[in-house]
């Protein structure tokens, strides 16, 4: 209905309908409140304008009336709150079997890397009807990944992952904006989201020369020597990573955390902070030795160790893209542990 309304944004995701419905509800509620207040104001202003000989009638106030116009609005507000919370909760909870895209933001561009291995800049191709989970981080300042047509926005922070998801419902090309001010070319940090029919998308993915991201990660895992300690049996000096992702991990300090993307990331970059129970603090930090892209690949690899079927990942001819700077990272990392992990 609203698709062709001139002052309305395009609606192209599952979330957009939810947000629009809530927005229209709020428009109606607030329009009624505005009408109520403005009608009263205008009516009183006209009806009780100054007339000689007609004095104002003093009224103390009325506690029942005060309670009425406190409690009724509060009730209305609570309805808005709950509805808003439900929509928000849905928008913040990615479905379990989403396709994953790793996003690295930097001044002033978006780098997007599909779990299947395709890499894009300032442009993201996705198929209609598939849940897409974005695992995002920034190389420098805070950015914000905003697709108005999907009613989706999430800040992208340096030093951690933030997660968002969407399911596109309509083929087309939509704006991608950076919504958090990030410096000189903030307004140039824009791109597009290309939503395609599944068949078209299939054709598009087959055009790419690269293998899945997790395969790249596996290669880095071996090159950095991670596999010498993190063995696939119980004999390693580090925890066995098979089946770790998505499950609770008991830490040496007594806490238990769920091994999500941020946890894996933190273990790579700051291994001492959340050390697994029963293991010595011998892992070196990889902070500064691996790029954001490499961390993403490693995370994708660790995640792939917990997916028995790996149904989402297509294994086309694997041809891992060799990465500049990898050698340096490798030589630095294989040496003795640094002091920073002891805490």
């Amino acid at each position, binding site marked *: 209905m609203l698709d062709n309304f001139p002052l309305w944004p395009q609606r192209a995701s599952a979330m957009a309908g939810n*947000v629009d419905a809530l927005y229209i509800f709020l428009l109606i509620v607030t329009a009624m409140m505005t009408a109520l207040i403005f009608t009263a104001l205008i009516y009183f202003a006209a009806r*009780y304008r*100054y007339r000689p000989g007609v004095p104002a009638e003093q009224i103390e106030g009325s506690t029942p009336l*005060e309670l009425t*116009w*406190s409690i009724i609005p509060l009730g209305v507000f609570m309805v808005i709150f709950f509805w808003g919370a439900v929509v928000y909760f849905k928008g913040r909870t990615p479905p379990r079997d989403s396709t994953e895209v790793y996003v690295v933001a930097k001044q002033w561009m978006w780098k997007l890397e599909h779990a299947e291995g395709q890499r894009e800049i300032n442009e993201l191709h996705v198929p209609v009807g598939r849940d897409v989970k974005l695992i995002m981080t920034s190389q*420098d300042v805070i950015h914000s990944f905003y697709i108005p047509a999907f009613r989706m926005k999430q800040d992208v922070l340096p*030093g*951690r992952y933030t997660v968002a998801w969407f399911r596109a419902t309509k083929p087309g090309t939509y704006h991608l904006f950076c*919504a958090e001010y990030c410096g000189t070319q903030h307004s140039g940090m824009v791109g597009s989201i290309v939503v395609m029919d599944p068949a078209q998308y299939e054709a598009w993915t087959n055009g790419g020369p690269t293998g899945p991201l997790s395969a790249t990660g596996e290669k880095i895992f071996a090159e950095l020597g991670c596999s010498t300690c993190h063995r696939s049996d119980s004999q390693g000096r580090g925890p066995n990573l098979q089946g770790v992702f998505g499950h609770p991990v008991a830490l040496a300090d007594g806490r238990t955390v769920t091994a999500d993307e941020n946890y894996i990331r933190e273990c790579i970059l700051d291994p001492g902070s959340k050390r697994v129970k029963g293991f010595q603090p011998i892992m070196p930090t990889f902070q500064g030795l691996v790029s954001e892209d490499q961390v993403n690949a490693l995370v994708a690899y660790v995640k792939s160790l917990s997916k028995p079927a790996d149904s989402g990942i297509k294994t086309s001819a694997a041809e891992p893209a060799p990465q500049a700077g990898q050698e340096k990272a490798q030589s630095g990392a294989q040496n003795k542990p640094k002091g920073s992990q002891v805490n």
Partner: protein
Amino acid sequence: MATATAQPPGQAIERENYLNKHYGVGSWLLTTDHKRIALLYLVSITFFFFIGGFFALLIRLELLTPASDLVQADTYNKLFTMHGMVMVFFFLIPSIPATLGNFLIPMQIGAKDLAFPKINLLSWYLYIIGGVMMLHCMLTGGVDTGWTFYTPFSTAYTNTKIVEAGLAIFVAGFSSILTGLNFIVTIHRMRAPGMTWTRMPLFIWAHYATSIIQILGTPVVAITIVLVAAERALHLGIFDPKLGGDPLLFQHLFWFYSHPAVYIMILPSMGVVSEIIACFSRKRIFGYSFVALSSIAIAVFGFLVWAHHMFVAGMSVYAALIFSLLSYAVAVPSAVKVFNWTATLYKGSIHYEAPMLYAFGFLGLFTIGGLTGLFLACLGIDVHVTDTYFVVAHFHYIMVGGALMGYLGGMHFWWPKISGKLYPEGWARLAALIVFIGFNLTFFPQFLLGYMGMPRRYADYSHMPEFQILNVFSTAGSTVLGVGYLLPMIYFLWSMRYGKPAPDNPWNAAGLEWQTASPPTTFNFEEEPVVTWEAYNYEEIDSGHKQEVHVVG
């Protein structure tokens, strides 16, 4: 300084008052009279208002066309940053408290001056030092982070003058703290006999609530600025993840002050509107105690909602739920005020002089600003509209539509008392109308732009030319608005020389300040007034047999 020099000389019958008692620059720069300090503030904040307004006009001109063609992206970024910093820290925060509050609080409670007259002067000097630092910062390069200083951009990536701008705000912040402190002590300790808490004008209640926020909130932003400076200059890892810090910590600290700061701007304006509506409908305020206590409730709840600026910042979902819920809690006392003001009009005897037109303007714009706040507090909607023009429109409706309308209404209402002269009523009504129309024309299209998805702080929107039409409306409106703001300054200045002399109580208003001379003498009252009546005793005033001892200055 125009106030000091434009005093008409040698009117034979002129009584001695605070303006003509002493002449010369020294008598102003070393004064401890709260009324003269209020005028020092008035001149200074007006200066900064027009600087901030000039930046705003350049921003709107740049956005007239999608491409970044009037100024370069870097310049644009500095323009919106300096617009925000100047308007927030050097105009809106001091606006009503430091001018009207300073002028009126002692008089409204029957005191000779504030509790600490010298600290009052000190606070103006701190403001000026901060202001000069900010001017120097702007003239030598400026800042490009947005007034929000988000880290790690501000601490590690921009090469503009963060530390200098931060220090300017730091110093000006102490001015705000001292003013708040002065008001609280004055309201507690200096009330005239019989001026009980429940007899105080609502203007005083609003300033009391404001002062609480100034004292409790401002130190937090001061500390935050010091931390930003420490990270930037000394590379202490506080906010930058590369140094082991947390960028969200900055946002929490910043908004812990900067959200309540909005209430520093709007509460005094609400106080002004209460006075005006009572006077021009010749009635006591409906539900006095609810209006008074709602100010305190806003001040208290206002400290518990800061993270509603951060729903997409990477905060936990559960924290977002709590802050959304509390944000609705703070909306209730604001709604209660609007309902009470509306109910006050009922069976009133309403006059339509310019102050009342501004008060109506306030009610209209604040209602829209407040109701659009419901959209932003709603988690599901906020995700889409935060950091877009929807937010820009919303907070301008509150901080400009609300706070500035109240400020202008108050300036007109008390101008006869301040200057001893009447302003030209016809021009003033026209200006009120122009401001109202210009304001809506400027900012209403921005709600539509925001929902369509136009992000804020974009120098260039040539990728999305569909946003241009609404931007053209907005820019056109801003020129109308500019005229509306220039007019009062012109006719106020004009009236100081050519205006008719004002009677002591031109509006026949309640309130002790109207029982002083216009302009008042240095110590306001010749003898200490004794209060035996409620605030807004318009029934007694209008029935003409007010039996209280008439204390005339």
